[in-house]
């Protein structure tokens, strides 16, 4: 029973991170119809920025802020300079481009920061909380993970629902031509969308790195899990991404706890194939299924 609860708690914590990552993918997909496979290395890069700041003797929180800001800038710059030319072109070009970015950012990080494992600090304790006389697998950092992802989601919802800027962003994502006719500067909105997505991705990177080891490839598998989570929710829906992330986190945690941690990626593949075969529009699809 205790193992079951701990596995579930671990899965929820991890699921929150996948949810954040899936949310970043959904933000970009909605506005530009591009799946940003370079999301993982981008988040890895900003995590290293945080590590540099922390290693220089500043506080964890300054590093944290530096990572988020550099994510914002990185996302905006990449969209403006590299991604803009392929937007609206053949799908395969965008896919190859983001994969090219994947390799470039990887190589860049390895050249600048080296290819070895380095430990990344956590701001809160990593010891489990005591309930009665047994320790459960939820620690301070886990709670911080869940809370910070929830806050970011709430902020995003508030941005899109209640602000003029959010309305303009939604309009550009919904129909670029009409938005343009109504005087929305679509280009700026797309850049902002990428910047926000990269910021959310950076948060996911920080949360995965906290209390464990980082190296240039530490986020690689997360792009797969984030993608699976986003597809579970249908790639188009932010809420779907969050639910998809939690579901995936739970499933993978149980596979890892009861079958073997080596098969986690395989389980993600199986889940992805099942969803794409049975419900290509995601498990929450109500309208006619979109062709994938």
């Amino acid at each position: 029973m205790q193992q079951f609860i701990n596995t579930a708690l671990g899965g929820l914590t991890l699921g929150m991170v996948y949810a954040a990552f899936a949310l970043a993918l959904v933000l970009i997909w909605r506005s530009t119809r591009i799946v940003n496979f370079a999301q993982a290395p981008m988040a890895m890069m900003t995590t290293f920025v945080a590590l540099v700041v922390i290693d220089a003797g500043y506080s964890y929180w300054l590093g944290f802020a530096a990572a988020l800001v550099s994510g914002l800038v990185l996302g905006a710059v990449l969209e403006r300079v590299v991604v803009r030319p392929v937007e609206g072109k053949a799908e395969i070009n965008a896919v190859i481009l983001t994969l090219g970015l994947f390799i470039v950012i990887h190589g860049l990080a390895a050249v600048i920061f080296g290819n070895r494992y380095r430990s990344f600090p956590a701001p809160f304790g990593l010891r489990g909380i005591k309930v009665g006389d047994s320790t459960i697998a939820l620690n301070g950092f886990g709670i911080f993970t869940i809370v910070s992802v929830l806050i970011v989601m709430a902020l995003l919802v508030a941005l899109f629902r209640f602000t003029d800027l959010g309305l303009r962003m939604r309009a550009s994502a919904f129909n670029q031509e009409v938005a343009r006719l109504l005087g929305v500067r679509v280009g700026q909105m797309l850049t902002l969308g990428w910047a926000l997505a990269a910021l959310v991705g950076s948060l996911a990177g920080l949360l995965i790195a906290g209390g464990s080891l980082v190296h240039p490839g530490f986020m690689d598998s997360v792009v797969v899990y984030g993608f699976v989570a986003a597809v579970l929710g249908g790639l188009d829906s932010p809420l779907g991404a969050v639910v998809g992330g939690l579901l995936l986190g739970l499933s993978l945690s149980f596979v890892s706890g009861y079958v073997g941690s080596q098969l986690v990626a395989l389980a993600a593949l199986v889940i992805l194939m099942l969803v794409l075969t049975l419900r290509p529009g995601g498990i929450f699809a109500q309208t006619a299924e979109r062709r994938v």
Partner: protein
Amino acid sequence: MRERISGLWQHSTLARHLIGAGAALLVVIAVMESVSEFRSIQLASMAYLGIAAGGLTVLTGLNGQISLGHGALMAFGAYTAALLLPDRESSTPLVLVIIAAVLVTLVVGIAVGVAAARLHGPYLAGATLALAVAVPGIALFFKETLGGEQGLRVVMPDIPEWVLNTAFFVTGSELSRSRYVAYIAWLTLIVVFTLLANLARSRVGRRWRAVRDDEVSAELAGIDLGRARVSAFMVSAAAAGAAGAMLAFTVKLAAPSAFSLTLSLTLLAAVVLGGLGSLTGALIGAALLTFLPGVVTDIGVGSGLSDIRAAELAPLVYGLVMVAVILVAPAGIVGSLRGLIARSRKTNPLTTTSKGTSS
């Protein structure tokens, strides 16, 4: 007589490809005999990257399906070879080992292809990306049979007497073991490329292209979309299996770390660099991937980077080239050159041939 020969050249693709293969064999022998032992090992790696890139070219270039999982498919070929060649006493002939590697990967390719046939663009990329990340885990999970992190050793059998004799007869020098492996790899490459080139020119290849260019029209013309997609995936998986076996022969090891996501992305880079859809392009891409790292690393070390960091410059460079190709020359190196030649022909009517063959 001359007309008959030129007629044969015009009409029989098979004859043309066979003559090309023969010429390629001569070039391979000439090159292999003039390079050092170290270079022959590099050439063997170029061959297996080339075989896998050739298969991926058929899939991505001709059929429009993108796969980031071809490195993982190579693992099936490599592990099959490793299981069949556990020690010196294993008496399985290499030809059978290669065929077994191809068949096993083919079966996996059918399974993946059936699932992939329904997917498009980013969905297919994501699914095959998941495949690339998942496969190494299988080798780690079945530690007993697949050797876990350390992987399986591949023991090459002794070179058969008749091969040694033939080699001595043709080249006049003793055949070393690494050169033997390089020859096998290049022979396999020539066979695979001849088959792929024929398929691409055949009815099957035309169907693949039709599906890539316009699904609706292809379906109206009576092409079974699913069958065309799955068959393209099968063929390219088979090539990946052969490539995996060659990798196992060359590095004498099948270990999960060799089939990381990096390998899959590298293969895609080779295909994109060379130009989507051209087998020559795939070979050029494979050559770049084999020889560029050495050059770039030397430059890196020369400019004061440590060895380990300089080694990371190579992926950085071909990632950059990949991005640049998509932004500047989406047709890749070969495609862009072809475009340039076609344009210069158009502006100069004297060189335009009246019998333009469609390509």
